[in-house]
């Protein structure tokens, strides 16, 4: 029995040593805190990697729950998180319902069009053609408009089977936002939302579901988050941008879509009018309150939130986005965000000078 106690005591001592030794109790000269965030699942792999390295480098411990953009915003409204992640910026109406917030873009991504056409290595598409495929107006792969875009490709004389997301998703929002910009018909009939009633095709849950159906069903086409498609090496189409260039989705062509950004960084960059821009690109944001003293948060908590965001905007983190298949922010977005973070206050006092 004594041996048993000794063993338990030993194990306890070891665990305590392990926990205590992992981290110093101060970060940047203030006490270390725990930060909590929740929201979008799209940037989850990037956030997980970044928050882990941040902690290893002596930063605060950050936990992030991928519960969806909508859930994240709800959590921020309830004041139970330090920040929320969202693929869609808050609309003016949503901003009116809550205290002032600051949007900080953290990285960029895109929606790619994956397809399964045996024997077809390269597929070119244009916005109006994509819209008409998903609206059920172009129903066959050997349609004249598809042939015109792909003069060197032998397209099969088969029916097109569109695949879309069955769950509410930021990916669907970005895709339909793009379709609404390039097709008047799409805008009036279906619009842009996290879920849309697609008139044709079948739906599957999540990127893996859509990719799974496309993977084992010939003649399908569907939209998938670029981070998933790049990681899984799925065949995806080139898309014609506003300047008429055929663009392959890549880290560079996604970053090129950022173009000119407003001061508060809230903007849609689909169908961007920029050279070399992939037209279905997007930002993902972290949203925090401008006044950081809420729900009894300490000043250290507020400082830690800003420290984390500074870190995420730093060159080294932005350079690491490509390793997890996202695209880095353009310099303008980083500069604007650093300016915006200076306006964040605690008890009305600016935290950063």
């Amino acid at each position, binding site marked *: 029995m004594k041996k048993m106690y000794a063993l338990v005591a030993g194990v306890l001592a070891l665990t305590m040593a392990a926990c205590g030794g992992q981290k110093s109790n101060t970060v940047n000269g203030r006490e270390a805190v725990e930060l909590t965030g929740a929201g979008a699942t799209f940037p989850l792999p990037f956030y997980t990697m970044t928050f882990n390295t941040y902690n290893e480098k002596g930063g605060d411990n950050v936990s992030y729950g991928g519960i969806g953009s*909508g859930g994240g915003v709800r959590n921020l409204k309830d004041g139970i998180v330090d920040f929320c992640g969202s693929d869609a910026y808050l609309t003016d109406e949503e901003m009116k319902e809550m205290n002032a917030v600051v949007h900080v873009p953290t990285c960029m991504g895109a929606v790619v069009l994956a397809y399964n056409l045996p024997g077809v290595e390269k597929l070119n598409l244009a916005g109006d053609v994509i819209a008409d495929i998903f609206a059920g107006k172009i129903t066959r792969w050997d349609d004249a408009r598809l042939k015109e875009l792909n003069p060197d490709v032998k397209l099969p004389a088969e029916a097109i089977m569109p695949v879309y997301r069955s*769950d509410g998703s930021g990916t669907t929002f970005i895709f339909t936002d793009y379709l609404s910009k390039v097709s008047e018909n799409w805008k009036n009939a279906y619009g842009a*939302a996290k879920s849309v009633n697609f008139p044709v095709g*079948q*739906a599957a849950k999540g990127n893996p579901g859509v990719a799974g159906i496309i993977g084992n069903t010939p003649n399908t086409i569907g939209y998938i988050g670029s981070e998933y498609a790049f990681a899984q090496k799925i065949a995806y189409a080139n898309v014609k941008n506003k300047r008429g260039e055929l663009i392959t989705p890549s880290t560079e062509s996604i970053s090129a879509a950022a173009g000119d950004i407003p001061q508060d960084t809230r903007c849609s960059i689909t169908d961007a009018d920029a050279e070399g821009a992939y037209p279905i690109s997007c930002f993902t944001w972290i949203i925090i309150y401008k006044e950081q003293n809420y729900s009894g948060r300490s000043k250290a908590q507020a400082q830690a939130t800003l420290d984390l965001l500074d870190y995420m905007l730093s060159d080294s983190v932005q350079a690491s986005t490509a390793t997890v298949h996202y695209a880095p922010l353009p310099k303008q977005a980083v500069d604007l965000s650093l300016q915006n973070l200076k306006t964040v206050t605690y008890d009305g006092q600016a935290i950063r000078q």
Partner: protein
Amino acid sequence: MQDKIFRFVLILSAVVIPIIGGGIIYSLTNDAASAFKQFGFWEFIFSDDWNYTPGNESYGALPFITGTLLTTLLALIFCIPFSLPVALFVGEYFRGRKVATILSTVTDLLAGIPSIIYGLWGFYTLRPIFMELNLSPQGSGILTASFVLAIMIVPYAASLSAEFIKMVPADLKEGAYAMGATRAEVIRRVVFPTAGSGVFSAYILAIGRALGETMTVTMLIGNTNQIPTSLTTTGNTMASIIANQFGEADGLKLSALIAIGLILFLITAIINLIGKILIRRAQHV
């Protein structure tokens, strides 16, 4: 003293379950209220308009109610030719023998397989076969979902039916044999009339499982918000639309999803109630 404590604990735990059940009904009704208020109870049930467009939102549950009832009915039809022979094999023909024990163990094992595994099997094995056979162009749909559902509910229907078939008194069967009845006649005239209500209750239990099955159906049904027009078209069930949409839902949409949950709850309750009444009636005859 000990007796009193025991009694107290007993009452406490007996009361907890009804309280939880009541709480679920209360919160479902409470949260579904705004959808019912907006569209009207019957209009909500009988409308097939499911439109997410902001500012033009309109939700009706009919596509999902028909999807659920259709997949369940088909699954039941598909499951009978598999489950009834198994039940007779185990409960009557090879009763007590080693081969029957093996067969019933294997059938019971099917019940322990997580539904996601059935989903994966349906997705990667059955779907391509259906496409190969030209049964449906996209492979997913009502037929695929019902077929996998049928296999999932076989163990529920079979093992319970076998128990009831085993319980048919030997005297009755021996009497029939003594009068020169063949085995098929004994099963038709003696075993089924006697075990009938029990077998029926086994199928009610199986229906209960098929009604609420979520993961497998979501993977195989194609998830389109329309009333299915044929066996090979895609559709959506009440459980699958909730699983698909609740993550990003709020406001009226969330309320509509909860209302669908309440209706699913009611349908399950009604079917169970009908089953119970029929069983009781059969027992009195």
